[in-house]
């Protein structure tokens, strides 16, 4: 019997697991997919919002603002790419300028530092913005983060501090008996005293297995373009149009790996599994983005993708003890600013909610740091040569576009989270995320994985189980 089962290994479940691993508790993470960070966490704008935008007094505002200063230390301990580049919300006409004042007032209420910039100041900060941009609201504390690394490294750290992770474990039923839960999954049955529901778009379904959800989660799809790295940056900050009722609008965002995201759309859909893209939404993004920056090089698109936001019918995060079933803690409806708020949410869940149910006894040997990853791309020749001396695989390049070596792939395979797909490697090392989208590196990556695991290349999956890259057919 475990002390706590966490359902969902996205950024929320991952950071909660890491917080919990500070204490002498038996923790198990159950993830339905073939890798961590595979749902909403894998497909969003990767922004650490400053926190000026959410409604003052809401949980969104509270946790976003609390979390922003936590990012620096967290990312340093977990070796996660994070850049505090600031965000700029622009007024596209004189009529829109008063709105900046409204946002400034809201920022003040939320205790977030912002500054209104004049037309000239905006142009100096972002020279590519169209001429009709009249001014902007600059929030210096906003930033961008690598959500794959944040989640994977947090979970790796948690595992090294004693947490267990099971992949491909989709929860099918939950039963509560006197003081424990029995959780049946596609990977076996598990028992625990407490359940932390961090199941993303499925959080309401999970609640309904054992309790009664007083709210619903509607999947809200957002599609994006990913633009290749450019010699001169398209934008230097996170650029927003004015927010509207439904969403923050179509943004232009740098990523920590040097790409640019353009998007997202905001479309409520029926299916919680539909992450496809369609021409209509993509054309919509183009039209709106070009209003901000007329020379976005869409011909340099490397790929498009969609993610699903877990939009709660309550309009705000649902974080707390389940009102009907003791021991069930819900962390649901984590849509924007979910990623930005995640570190603060994790602390609250552990230090307030879990603490009220269990006594938290700190581990003396808790290690908050992961073994940093060697990032060949960023190393000097001198340091590279020293590495090669110890390990010749540092001289074997696997990915030309992103400069990733065989040694880095093998290092990843040897870390605590099981790597079962090409996509898992792609998410962490970026091999396959670059210009050629895996054209050169996929054959090498599958060979390395096959050799490492001692299995045929035809058994290597691209993403979920059985999504084979090359399945040989003996009948041919």
């Amino acid at each position: 019997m475990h002390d706590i089962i966490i359902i969902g290994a996205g950024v929320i479940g991952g950071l909660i697991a890491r917080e919990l691993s500070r204490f002498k508790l038996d923790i198990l993470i159950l993830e339905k997919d073939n890798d961590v960070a595979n749902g909403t966490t894998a497909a969003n704008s990767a922004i650490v919002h400053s926190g000026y935008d959410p409604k003052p007094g809401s949980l969104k505002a509270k946790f976003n603002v609390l979390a922003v200063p936590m990012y620096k230390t967290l990312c340093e301990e977990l070796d996660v790419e994070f850049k505090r580049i600031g965000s700029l919300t622009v007024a596209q006409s004189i009529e829109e300028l008063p709105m900046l004042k409204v946002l400034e007032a809201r920022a003040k209420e939320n205790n977030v530092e912002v500054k209104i910039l004049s037309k000239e100041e905006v142009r100096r900060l972002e020279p590519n913005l169209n001429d009709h941009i009249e001014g902007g609201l600059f929030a210096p504390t906003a930033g961008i983060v690598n959500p794959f690394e944040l989640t994977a490294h947090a979970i790796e750290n948690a595992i090294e501090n004693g947490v267990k992770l099971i992949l491909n474990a989709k929860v099918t039923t939950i039963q509560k008996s006197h003081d424990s839960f029995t959780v049946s999954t596609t990977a076996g049955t598990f028992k625990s005293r407490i359940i932390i529901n961090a199941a993303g778009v499925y959080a309401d379904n999970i609640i309904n297995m054992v309790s009664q959800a007083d709210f619903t989660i509607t999947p809200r799809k957002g599609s994006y373009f990913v633009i290749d790295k450019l010699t001169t940056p398209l934008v230097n900050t996170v650029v927003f149009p004015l927010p509207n009722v439904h969403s923050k609008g179509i943004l232009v965002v740098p990523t920590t790996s040097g790409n640019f995201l353009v998007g997202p759309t905001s479309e409520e859909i029926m299916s919680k599994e539909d992450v496809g893209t369609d021409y209509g939404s993509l054309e919509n993004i183009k039209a709106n983005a070009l209003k901000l920056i007329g020379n976005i090089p869409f011909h340099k698109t490397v790929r498009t993708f969609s993610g699903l936001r877990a939009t709660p019918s309550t309009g705000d995060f649902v974080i707390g003890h389940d009102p009907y079933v003791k021991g069930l803690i819900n962390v649901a409806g984590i849509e924007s600013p979910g990623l930005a708020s995640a570190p603060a949410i994790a602390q609250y869940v552990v230090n307030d909610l879990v603490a009220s149910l269990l006594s938290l006894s700190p581990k003396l040997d808790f290690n908050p740091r992961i073994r940093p990853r060697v990032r060949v791309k960023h190393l000097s020749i001198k340091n590279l040569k020293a590495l090669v001396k110890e390990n010749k695989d540092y001289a074997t390049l696997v990915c030309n576009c992103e400069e990733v070596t065989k040694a880095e792939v093998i290092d990843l395979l040897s870390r605590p989270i099981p790597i079962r797909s090409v996509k898992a490697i792609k998410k962490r090392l970026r091999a396959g995320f670059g210009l050629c989208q895996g054209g050169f590196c996929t054959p090498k990556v599958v060979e390395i994985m096959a050799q490492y695991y001692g299995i045929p290349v035809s058994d290597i999956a691209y993403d979920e189980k059985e999504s084979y890259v090359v399945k040989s057919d003996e009948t041919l």
Partner: protein
Amino acid sequence: MIKKLTCLVCPRGCTLTIDEALNVSGNFCPRGIPYALQELKAPKRTLTYLVKVKGHSQPLPVRSDAPIDKALIFEAVAILNTLELTPPIDFNTIVVENILGSGVNIIATRKIECNEDSYLRKHV
């Protein structure tokens, strides 16, 4: 029966029509006529294929050293599917002599050394 086909003699690619009396029309130049008649009577194709090599993941690419009758292609392929060659294999060695009595040989288009796969493993 009237047949239509694309002439391949030059990149212009005229659409040629051949009637029952074997009259050819649609050709921009005279070269189209013998091409059409040949294609109709006895079309030939160069066969390029892959043959399994013992102990090697990479198959051996092979070719017919002259075009074969189009009608024989699938039968020739069936024969090549049954082969498993043993390295080393020299460049342009005959792999199948006089395939299906056509007078055409199937030859290797690569040289295969003995230890290729272990070499491959070292270099990803």
